[in-house]
């Protein structure tokens, strides 16, 4: 299977803090790949690296064989027309209604007539179940609806790659179910490649074709849902089963309690 994105031995630091230490991953074309891991280990950073918003300190990231970190701004913008990102907050433009938000990338990057744009936008909104909400403003949408509207905008230009940043965070069970269904169905129907960054284990195991678990600056486990479930790594099992203590300690590093108290 061809890889749409290849992450080769990247190291990334924020100041003195190492976020990734020589990490490698492959995102297969047409598949849903999940990147999981505890909060704060830099999962969103990985999406920003793939999108070229950040540059690794070393290593390379290839999109369709082209190196993202070494692209100039124009090439990077051309490349981004083939990828899109669903931000955790949705990041809808608050001064536009849902229709205009979805139409935005079409108006920016195509010369389609308004009539054709209207048809495309309504079809995208139909796909996420929000055709009836096209005239609403982002402030009038629930959290789940805002993410679905942002998803319609993300797929407006029919990108090859869609990156989802914590799509299930803070969602009620119904909204979560809708988003899980949408991610899976859109990936299959539009022949997209999806990268889902999340720590919602149950949901992602049902839709991901391949899973990477990141912790401690490296990939601690990867494989299909079945392989991950059967992993003998204590770290992977702690993450999957949500154990409070284990290789990832319950206590943040600190001097001993006696030393602190007395």
């Amino acid at each position, binding site marked *: 299977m061809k890889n749409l994105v290849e992450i080769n031995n990247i190291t990334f630091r924020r100041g003195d803090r190492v976020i990734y230490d020589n990490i490698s991953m492959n995102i297969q074309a047409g598949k849903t790949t999940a990147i999981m891991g505890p909060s704060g280990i830099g999962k969103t950073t990985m999406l920003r690296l793939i*999108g070229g*918003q950040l540059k690794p300190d070393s290593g390379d990231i290839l999109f369709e064989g082209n190196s993202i970190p070494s692209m100039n701004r124009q090439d990077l*913008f*051309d490349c*981004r*027309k083939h*990828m*899109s*990102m669903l*931000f*955790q*907050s949705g*990041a*809808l*433009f*608050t001064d536009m209604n849902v229709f205009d938000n979805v139409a*935005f*990338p079409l108006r*920016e*990057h195509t010369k389609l007539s308004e009539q054709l744009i209207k048809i495309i936008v309504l079809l995208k909104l139909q796909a996420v179940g929000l055709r009836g909400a096209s005239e609403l403003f982002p402030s009038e949408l629930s959290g789940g609806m805002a993410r679905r509207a942002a998803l319609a905008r993300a797929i407006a230009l029919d990108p090859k790659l869609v990156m989802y940043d914590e799509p299930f965070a803070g969602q009620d069970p119904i909204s979560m179910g809708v988003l899980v269904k949408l991610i899976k169905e859109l990936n299959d129907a539009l022949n997209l490649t999806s990268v889902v960054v999340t720590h919602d284990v149950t949901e992602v195991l049902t839709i991901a074709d391949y899973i990477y678990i990141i912790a401690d600056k490296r990939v601690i486990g990867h494989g299909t849902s079945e392989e991950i479930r059967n992993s003998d790594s204590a770290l992977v099992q702690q993450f999957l089963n949500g154990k409070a203590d284990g290789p990832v300690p319950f206590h943040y590093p600190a001097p001993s309690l006696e030393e602190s108290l007395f």
Partner: protein
Amino acid sequence: MDFFARIGRSIIDNCSTMGRASILFWGAMVAKPQPTKSIPLVIKQMYVVGVQSLLIILVSGLFIGMVMGLQGYTVLVNYGAEESLGPMVALSLLRELGPVVTALLFAGRAGSALTAEIGLMKATEQLSSLEMMAVDPLRRVISPRLWAGIFSMPLLALIFSAVGILGGHLVGVDWLGVDAGSYWSIMQAAVDFNDDVMNGVIKSIVFAVVVTWIAVFNGYDAMPTSEGISKATTQTVVHASLAVLGLDFVLTALMFGTE
């Protein structure tokens, strides 16, 4: 040593901030023009920063003109020179008060709003999402606001001065009885279009560039938190006001210092 290290760190931080501000200014000013997209955006922003600032400009201009009329009359009448009220009000407004007070009001009303809006767009990832949609935020967000400020402020300053002159007339002529013919004719004779009106316009163009630049940069560079946006908004008003007052002295010295 800590003291010197802090001074050094502060100098480096300030240089770095100036560098980032210059890059933003350059990127926004030379953004590839796309007339069909850019013009409607600039017009929309002119409505937001210009038209919506009109009320505060009109009311302030009227009252400042009225106060000048009253203060000017009480001094001039002692020397029997109350007919000179017209040029006194007009020259003060066109040369100084119009551009300066408009810039200060613009910084407080439109500048703070620009900073807060852009800062919130950053905090809610709207600027990042533009980047990811291959749309340059400097072209789409910063440039229209910068140009709208540059176009709007000189117009607002002229309106401010015109309303102020009418305010002076209201108090000086209609209330205190200065001769209307003297008010207008001496003003017409004393005010030179190039020296007074155009120099005022040049001042307000310079203030427009500086105030709008400070406002959009503080928003773009704000920490994407509620505290960061609050700090950036305050910084806009303080920095822009100080810059306007400082630059006013420099420009006044250059324009009128050798007369």
